[in-house]
């Protein structure tokens, strides 16, 4: 009987492995993001461009000027909505969200994103801190924690699908050579801060009497990749449900505080955009939160006196630091901690095993899409001189993809606020709060010193 059962079980296991390609938002971010990049390249090769559909509001100074700008562009905004609703809708449907419920909710999200993007293009926006990421986040937080978010809107609030798609698109604007040049420094800086932060949270937590599984879950939430780090390690070490909830609550609250605090402090210190992006990448906890902070700071370039560097440098430095320096190592953390939990820590009554395959299974696959997008656009740009690149490739290929990236990030920033309901968070207790906050202090200070002193020249050059 076993001889008969085994092949079918093998087929089932194989089918399960492949099903991840359709059931994980990492892969859908790749399909959607790379699909857009390839479509843009094909049109570019034909002498055309996706820039008609990748519309973005321009600077405006008065209501009449804004009306004159928007009135003739209705068809382009409608086409942009169709593009996003079809591509993201297919992804959401594959994740199990009914299309009939996703589409009306996404229409509302899209309209709100247009309004926020337009507001951010007001020529006085920087003066009043009306950066689109901050406005989107604040508006979402206000709604979700006061009147509440209508249930019909919830199917469209897929932060991770949007942010990962945006990161894949971001790869199109980052030459592979730049990733190869800056990647090692990002890895070194991130490794120093990650190990110091994890060590602090874990040591303080254990000293305060926390269960080791909770201390480790908190530690990776603070040191590696925020909520994603907390759930990865929570599962790897077999943490109690309540312990994972505590870690998630602390990460979300601190991450949101940092979205507002880091750009504010960096602005007061007039940090160059590349340096600020590296600091945010080292000291923020989650990709979505960090990108909100980095994009906010990038928006100050050219609008706030004394801030050097290009607007993209903040997001680029953040992505190198957070995605390449920290996120990709989560599988290694999970494997090592799982090994320690099963061999050294108190038994839980559940037998688990440390398996090196964990490193790949938990690998954030969207990073592959980010690297692939960078590689194909680098390849396409290879035959052009710098002058030709600025004249042809940038406006017709790269800039429209950057515009699409800004849109999908705005959907994500709105969704963060709209899904963060503080009253639903568990009561975390004083000891986890102290342990995590000790790690935050180390994280922020060490990240600041490394970004602004030790590697300052390096990150400043990134913005030039």
């Amino acid at each position: 009987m076993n001889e008969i059962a085994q092949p079918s079980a093998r087929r089932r296991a194989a089918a399960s492995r492949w099903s991840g390609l359709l059931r994980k938002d990492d892969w859908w971010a790749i399909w959607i993001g790379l699909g857009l990049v390839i479509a843009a390249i094909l049109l570019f090769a034909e002498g055309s461009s996706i820039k008609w559909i990748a519309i973005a509001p321009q600077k405006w100074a008065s209501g009449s000027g804004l009306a004159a700008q928007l009135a003739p562009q209705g068809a382009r905004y409608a086409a942009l909505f169709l593009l996003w609703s079809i591509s993201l809708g297919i992804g959401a449907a594959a994740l199990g969200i009914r299309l009939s419920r996703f589409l009306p909710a996404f229409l509302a999200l899209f309209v709100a994103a247009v309004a926020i993007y337009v507001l951010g293009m007001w020529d006085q926006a920087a003066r009043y801190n009306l950066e689109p990421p901050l406005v989107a986040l604040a508006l979402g937080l206000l709604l979700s924690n006061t009147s509440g978010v209508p249930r019909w809107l919830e199917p469209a609030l897929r932060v991770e699908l949007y942010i990962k798609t945006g990161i894949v698109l971001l790869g199109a604007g980052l030459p592979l050579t730049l990733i190869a040049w800056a990647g090692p420094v990002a890895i070194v800086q991130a490794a120093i801060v990650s190990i110091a932060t994890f060590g602090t949270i874990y040591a303080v937590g254990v000293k305060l009497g926390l269960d080791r599984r909770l201390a480790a879950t908190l530690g990776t939430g603070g040191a590696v990749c925020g909520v994603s780090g907390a759930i990865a390690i929570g599962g790897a070490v077999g943490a109690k449900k309540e312990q994972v909830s505590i870690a998630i609550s602390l990460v979300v609250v601190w991450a949101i505080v940092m979205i507002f605090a880091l750009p504010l402090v960096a602005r007061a210190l007039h940090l160059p955009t590349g340096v600020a992006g590296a600091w945010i990448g080292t000291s923020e906890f989650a990709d979505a939160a960090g990108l909100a902070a980095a994009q906010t700071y990038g928006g100050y370039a050219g609008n706030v006196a004394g801030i050097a560097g290009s607007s993209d440098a903040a997001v680029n430095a953040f992505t190198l630091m957070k995605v390449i320096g920290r996120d990709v190592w989560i599988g290694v953390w999970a494997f090592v901690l799982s090994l320690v939990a099963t061999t050294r820590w108190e038994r839980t009554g559940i037998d688990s095993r440390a398996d090196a395959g964990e490193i790949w299974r938990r690998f954030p696959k969207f990073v592959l899409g980010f690297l692939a997008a960078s590689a194909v656009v680098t390849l396409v740009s290879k035959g052009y001189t710098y002058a030709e690149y600025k004249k042809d490739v940038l406006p017709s290929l790269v800039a429209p993809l950057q515009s699409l990236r800004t849109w999908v990030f705005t959907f994500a920033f709105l969704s963060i606020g709209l899904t963060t309901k503080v009253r639903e968070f568990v009561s975390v207790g004083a000891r986890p709060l102290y342990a995590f906050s000790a790690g935050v202090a180390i994280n922020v200070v060490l990240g600041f010193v490394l970004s602004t002193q030790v590697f300052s020249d390096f990150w400043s050059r990134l913005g030039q």
Partner: protein
Amino acid sequence: MSETPERGMPEAASVNAAPLQRRRPSSPLCRNCRHFTGEPLALETAFAGLSSLSSAFASVRSEDGLCRLHDRYVAGSSACASFACAAAPAAPFAFDTASTSTRQS
């Protein structure tokens, strides 16, 4: 017939392996247990804030899920003495949105 370990999770760095090493694909792993739920939307409902800055659909979650019996968040490849076979062996990521989600359906 030889009793081979399950594909994808055999010898490497195996610990606490005594109850596990003779396991086959149909063996009593948490992911096949009725006390276990790995359905992503149900996990997002169970963990407030999970969908704010991450997702239960993320690769980093692998096939972890909640054990309702032990009230723990465990890897799908774990096992324990209280295994109770689920009615229908489902793929780890298969789910019915309408029947399980209170937030997104």
